[in-house]
């Protein structure tokens, strides 16, 4: 790993958090809760990309993974739930 110790600690921390977050996403069962967890995980991934010196990808992931994708999923869930009533 590159020189700076603070960056190393930060990178390892974020990697561990991302691994834990992925486990949480997989183990969530309810649909609406899963969407919110996915949104938080998108934010965590954006932080991961940022600490690995890729701000372009971090910006894309932030908006797509934490805003657009959960919104699309929520709307799809709402539509399906409406039809089941």
């Amino acid at each position, binding site marked *: *790993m*590159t020189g700076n110790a603070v960056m190393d600690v930060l990178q390892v921390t974020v990697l561990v958090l991302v691994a834990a977050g992925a486990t949480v996403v997989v183990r969530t069962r309810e649909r609406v809760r899963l969407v919110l967890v996915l949104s938080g995980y998108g934010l965590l991934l954006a932080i991961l990309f940022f600490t690995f010196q890729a*701000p*372009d990808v971090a*910006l*894309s992931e932030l*908006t*797509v993974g934490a*805003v*657009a994708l959960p*919104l*699309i999923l929520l*709307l*799809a869930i*709402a*539509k399906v739930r*409406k*039809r089941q*009533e």
Partner: protein
Amino acid sequence: MTPRQRRWLFAIAAAGLVACYLWAFAGLPGFGHYPGPYGPEILKNAIAQTNATGVVSAINFDYRGFDTVGEEFILFTAAAGMSVVLRKLRGEREGRGEREGRAKSPYDRARNRDLPPTSDAVRMPTLALVGPVVLIGWWLAAHAQANPSGGFQGGVILATAFMLVYLSGEFLAFRRLSPVALLDCAEALGAGAFVAVGLAAVAQGLPYLDNFLPLGQVPGAVSSSGTIALISFFVGIEVAAAFTLIIGELLEQTLLVRAGGR
């Protein structure tokens, strides 16, 4: 096969996979050591050749512009496919509610519940944020050559501004601000302009998507880097329109369209 046997089979296969995975990992170059010839070559010549200090955008829109055209059309096709799939079928009506009166907002379909008005705690921040988000999105899309960002990121942030209008409770305002015809035009304009810039290079006898506009004096200035800034601007428009179109179609489906006869 009982579930227990299946689990054992999975455990054996997974152990084999993990062994191969670790073996592959051991053969990778070290973390942060880039072994290939392409990267340092680009880093040496990018600023001199394109006058753009945002090297990622230079790669996206100049060195690998052809790949980016393909990506553009992935998003374009997704939005177009969504419009086609979610079109108004024969049995559906677009209504404002079961009551005959003029409902001010789309109503909630759950039986014993009235649509709660959006709380002020949500309305104020979202409406206050719409302006800054539009500004940030435009800035990111228009200045791809000078900072770590680009057309795609700026476009998505611009689309987020429209979503904020919806979130503040004003779905009909969102619909009025972003009518489908305008979004379709904007999206087609963005995608078409990207291709047209490439074809303009061909018209001058250069390869497709060659960077033929004057490169400007100072690297990273607003008017530098030739076609990179221009392409990024159009990509921003296209991406914003595509995302707003997708979200708008889904919102219409959820909030306005009623399945036939009810």
